């Protein structure tokens, strides 16, 4: 158990964060909090990718002028970061669309609590 946790403590923390997000989506009845839980999931996945590109003592993969390429071990992999830039943009867009819908729902039903909204809808 110790061997499983010791080297991978960051991944365990990310896994916990991910589960907190899923728990939030399922357990809370407030529609806005569900959206926040969705953001927690998205943050957990972004951290997961960033950890893949992480390296102790790693540096940016840019060659200063006059330096020979070759010591690739010194560089951190930049690809996960660029991928996650895209994922962050997607997350922002999703949150934006979600918030716009919540505004509409709140205006019409006067509440963001799911049971109240569903009760209003049945009327």
């Amino acid at each position, binding site marked *: 158990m110790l061997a499983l946790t010791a080297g991978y403590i960051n991944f365990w923390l990310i896994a916990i964060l991910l589960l907190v997000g899923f728990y939030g989506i399922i357990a809370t009845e407030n*529609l806005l909090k569900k*959206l926040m839980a969705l953001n927690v999931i*998205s943050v957990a996945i972004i951290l*997961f990718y960033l950890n893949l590109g992480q390296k102790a003592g790693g540096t940016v993969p840019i060659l200063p002028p006059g330096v020979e390429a070759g010591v690739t071990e010194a560089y951190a992999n930049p690809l996960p970061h660029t991928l996650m830039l895209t994922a962050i943009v997607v997350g922002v*867009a999703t949150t934006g*669309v979600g918030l716009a*819908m*919540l505004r509409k729902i709140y205006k*019409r039903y006067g509440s963001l609590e799911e049971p109240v909204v569903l009760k209003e*809808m049945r009327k």
Partner: protein
Amino acid sequence: MTAHLPALIPVAPLVIALLTPILARLSVTLVRITALTALLISLASSAGALQHALVEGTWHYHFGGWAPPWGIEYVIDPLAGIIAVLVSFFCLLVLVYAAPYLAGKPAQEKGYFYTLYLLLAAGLLGMVVTGDVFNLYVFLEISSLAAYALIASGGSRATVAAYRYLLIGTAAASLYLLGIGYLYALTGSLNMADLAVLLPPLAATNAVALAVALITIGLGIKMALFPLHGWLPDAYSSAPAPVAGILAAVMAKVSAYAIYRILYFVFKTAAPVQVALDIAGWMAAAGILYGSIMAIAQRDLWRMLAYSSVAQMAYIILGLALGNIMGLYGALLQILSHAFTKGCLFLVAGSISHQTGIRDIPRLARLSRRMPWTLAAFVVAAMSMVGLPPTVGFFSKWYLMLGAVEAGAWVFVAVLVASSLLTAVYFFRVLEYAYLKEDQGQVEGQTREVKAAGGWELAPAMLVPVLILGLGILTLGIFSDQIISGYIHFALPWRMP
């Protein structure tokens, strides 16, 4: 120009989508013409690329000139070509259909509709042509976000349905993203063809098993595979008519295509894939029965069609789970068949509700007299749903049946037969009301008068797409042999070079 055909498929609607909000301030007619042109370009490019793929083999297009695995490549093999033609054809047809629906709305709202619609088309087409798993995620989110907003444009109830779909859909996309994260950690590559080479030595690891599970569940939610279908009935039945049509016809199909593409072309025959397909197959069998039974219980025509979609989408997964040639023929033909059939049914349901305001099945009484052609298309589509020859629905179910017999999966055979009978029950109920039941005075009193449509039973822009789909169901059925041997055969994972 022809060298860039694969790129044009998603880029044409994407660029026009960004222009439409500006164009809408000038003239809505201009927006409509440019939108139709963009989708026509997509359809022509898809057809050209499919032809190229069939004649000269798979077309690898390196986006921006960057070679894979570093750059993003678009891959048009016969499979992607067929689905791209299907998707762009439907996007074009439903856009024609949308005109009478939009009539009378403010110009700004029309402009936004066209923008979102083109974004949806671009996202779906991008998912089909891309050869990169992360790029697929981005296009998945583009199409999903456009779909959420389009559904929400149907009013307050639709907004609640769309919001719940947004929560479930985004969670699903996150699962998919996490799944490809594992693949990236294992192999350092995101290119599908590259992954297919790098993965086999790692096939036995837990990480691959987890990736298969996450990706299958993520895309399974998107295609509404039972028991992950919870969002579908509300979303389909509250969306505006053209949106429900396009969602039911192609959106779920594209996710089914992505499952097929990733399980059969990327993971290939890794052991976890077999387990995932077995489980998915049983879920599909349960979903076929569940969807059919729930459809019988519905009073609202749209909800009935939505539940029927849950059942019919499961046929595709059933075919994939069988995994033999006949099963895959059946699954791929079912993608075409269900797109035409359910597309036609939703467009008919949308036309009825647009023209008369009727959504409840019992109030359809004697509608056949007022809208004979529209209901004739409905009858053809219903026959295809049940699986009567010579409609295409018969052939897709026939191949699935052959596949199930060949695999010795007798439970699946029984499920397929039972489902056809259940489908007959709920469609003949609709037809009974529409053709045989007499009007009751009280019901008649509640019915709105049929809107004038220039002497037509329905505005021509709505009627023509409905009739094209009705004829398409028959044509695909009659030429199903040629379609199988000329196109679908080349879309199998172990196809001949």
